[in-house]
């Protein structure tokens, strides 16, 4: 798999995710400055975490309107995998790659802690190596991560099996107490209609090595690599 990791001013997980793809998973990753545009064919594009444009206006809102996002949207429409992590998820939502928006947490402070997620979809290019209902532990670090989506869109997401992850407790129960940011339906991972775009608030690159306390996030990158090798 050849991946492009897009760097905006204020991205700060770009090198981490490139490191995991290259050094931990053995695939290829190019770091691309947003002003340079995407000029090559990639199997995957990663929108990394961080604070693009200082989270001015709304998290992700300004990065979503940069010219490189037109390249990302175009690539997504032709089937390229796009993974938006944390600020990347906010950027992707602001770009319309998925319905809904990530907005300020119900308790309005920055949360940085490990989170349990229940894997809801095991057929997408990002989640195919997980077991159905598997509970994984991947950290979150955000202030604007509460997923809000109109009811009609929510019904469609559920009907089309486009919810990838929900916050849960360690036994997999999706409860209000296990919802750190107040997200609608505990949702924290959403797939596009063709399931080639995944946006998620948790940071899989921070859970890809034993030394970091969890390798549960690595399966996302491994799934993407397996998908790319097949197609």
């Amino acid at each position, binding site marked *: 798999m050849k991946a492009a990791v897009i760097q905006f001013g204020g991205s700060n997980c770009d090198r981490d995710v490139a490191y995991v793809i290259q050094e931990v998973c053995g695939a290829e990753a190019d770091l691309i400055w947003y002003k340079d545009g995407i000029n090559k064919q990639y199997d995957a594009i990663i929108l990394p975490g961080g604070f693009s444009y200082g989270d001015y206006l709304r998290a992700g809102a300004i990065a979503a309107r940069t010219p490189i996002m037109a390249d990302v949207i175009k690539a997504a429409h032709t089937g390229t995998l796009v993974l938006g992590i944390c600020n990347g998820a906010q950027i992707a939502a602001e770009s319309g790659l998925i319905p*809904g928006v990530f907005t300020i947490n119900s308790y*309005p402070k920055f949360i940085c802690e490990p989170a349990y997620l229940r894997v809801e979809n095991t057929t997408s290019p990002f989640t195919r190596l997980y077991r159905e209902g598997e509970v994984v532990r991947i950290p979150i670090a955000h202030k604007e991560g509460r997923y809000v989506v109109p009811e009609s869109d929510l019904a469609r997401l559920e009907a089309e099996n486009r919810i990838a992850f929900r916050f849960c407790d360690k036994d997999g129960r999706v409860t209000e107490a296990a919802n750190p940011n107040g997200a609608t339906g505990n949702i924290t991972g959403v797939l596009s209609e063709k399931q080639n775009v995944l946006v998620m608030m948790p940071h899989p690159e921070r859970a890809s090595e034993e030394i970091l306390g969890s390798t549960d996030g690595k399966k996302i990158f491994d799934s993407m690599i397996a998908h790319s090798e097949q197609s």
Partner: protein
Amino acid sequence: MKFEIIITITLKEGMLNPEAEAIRHAIAHLGYATDRLVTADQFRITLDAADKTKAEEIAGSICERLLANPVIHTYEIEVI
């Protein structure tokens, strides 16, 4: 013609606004009772347009394309 425009962005009615709730509680700690508190973002823009209607149109387009997110926001435009 130059127009000065005031754009006010608010959360849609019924949207959770934890910031407003926190501020309302702080006001209560000072001893004032309030029933409701709304926060908003205000933008003042000066631009060139042929007339007032055109200026409103441009401001509307700016709101739709950037300043507001239609999933959660409404906006008001005042041309002065």
